[in-house]
């Protein structure tokens, strides 16, 4: 299992990286931690004529707070978030999510931006970022733009980046001390991808209420607005309502799939409303 030959570039600045992307005319890909892209290149499930390694772009590795939101650089690693580098503003949620992504040796390389752009339907950050109301900061040939996480997440292995664009950071609100969250995942062993993921966040101070479910066969993350409305109203959420909401989104769930997704959602909602 070896990757086909490719041209390797290691730009020293964001502008250089964007220029290399543009020059690649759709055949160049950004290499962040490579923990998904490199195995997929080896297995010939992904292809690239040019890899643009952003490991030298220190500006993309920073965490900073401004105007009540926290900006996490795209190449901040899962391990850094597990260790709470830059401070915990989410009552432990990011630390909790990061700690259960693959293994420490993978977390030392893998990045939050890489995970979001790769858009594996079973990945953790797309679900967690949507649940926290994150926006994606994007740089491209026409300048910079922002997209909220729902607009960014298109489909399985597909995000809203246009040709020549790259993710530079995610921006997310901090949670108030009164906020509650729950993150539930069904997986066969520690470090394995989740078969079902549910994330619920309720911040009574900011009014943020999010119920997000994802992973195969639901596809990428999506909000369940009907369940969010119940939580916002403080109304009990019955198991039947959870199953109706899941069935409305994906009518073809088999009994097992419905069971694990409904269980994850029920546990997460119960934990937050307790």
């Amino acid at each position, binding site marked *: *299992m*070896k*990757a*086909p*030959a*490719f*041209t*390797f570039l*290691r730009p020293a600045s964001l502008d250089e990286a964007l220029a290399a992307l543009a020059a690649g005319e759709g055949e160049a890909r950004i*290499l962040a931690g*490579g*923990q998904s892209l*490199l*195995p997929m*290149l*080896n*297995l010939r499930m992904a292809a690239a004529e040019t*890899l643009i*390694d952003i*490991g030298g772009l220190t500006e993309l590795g920073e965490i900073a707070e401004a105007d009540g939101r926290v900006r996490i650089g795209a190449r901040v690693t899962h*391990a850094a978030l597990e*260790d*709470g580098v830059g401070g915990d503003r989410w009552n432990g949620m990011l630390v909790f999510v990061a700690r259960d992504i*693959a*293994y*420490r*040796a*993978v977390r*030392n*390389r893998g990045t939050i931006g890489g995970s979001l752009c790769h858009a594996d339907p079973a990945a953790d950050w797309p679900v967690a970022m949507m649940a926290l109301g994150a926006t994606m900061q994007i740089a491209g040939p026409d300048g910079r733009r922002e997209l909220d996480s729902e607009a960014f997440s298109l489909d399985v292995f597909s995000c809203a980046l246009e040709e020549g664009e790259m993710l530079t950071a995610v921006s997310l609100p901090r949670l108030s001390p009164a906020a509650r969250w729950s993150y539930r995942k069904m997986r066969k*062993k*520690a*470090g394995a991808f989740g078969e079902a993921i549910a994330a619920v966040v309720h911040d009574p101070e900011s009014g943020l209420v999010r119920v997000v479910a994802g992973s195969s066969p639901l596809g990428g993350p999506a909000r369940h607005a009907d369940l969010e409305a119940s939580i916002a109203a403080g109304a009990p959420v019955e198991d039947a309502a959870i199953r109706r909401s899941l069935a409305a989104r994906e009518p073809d769930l088999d009994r097992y799939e419905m069971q694990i997704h409904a269980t994850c959602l029920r546990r997460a909602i119960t934990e937050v409303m307790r």
Partner: protein
Amino acid sequence: MTRLSLTVNGEAVSVDTEPRVSLADFLRDRLALKGTHLGCEHGACGACTVLLDGVPVRSCITLAASCEGAAVTTVEGFEDDAVVARLRAAFTEEHALQCGYCTPGMLATARDIVMRHTTPDIAAIRHELAGCICRCTGYRGIVRAVARVIAERAPVGAAPDGDCGPDAESP
């Protein structure tokens, strides 16, 4: 071909390499450091785990070209490392290896666990070791060996050891 310069086990290395070559293949085929073992070659088994700037990474899914200027430590470079010396002794005493195929990756991983944990919490050690597959021992000996070294270090306040890059103690 691109010229790659990095430090491997304390020695400066400068070699031409193809960009698509993994760090594992670079270490084994170009530098003849065969102690880094390849199992699954897609990041799932942990046999190829080495230290990159002091922290464990999967060398099978890290490009050698991405390691320009970095410091790599393989199992061959652990000879003078105080933490790994303790781990070697504990692995022997607890029967934590049998065929030895997973052991280089286990040692790199175990060293990192010992550096980041101050109490020998068995559940935490098992969670940390989940990314390293051993087909001989059933893990009990490995978990005991790691727990033993953490417990030994705890009374002395986890004094700095070793020479494998920046220490990553628990926050």
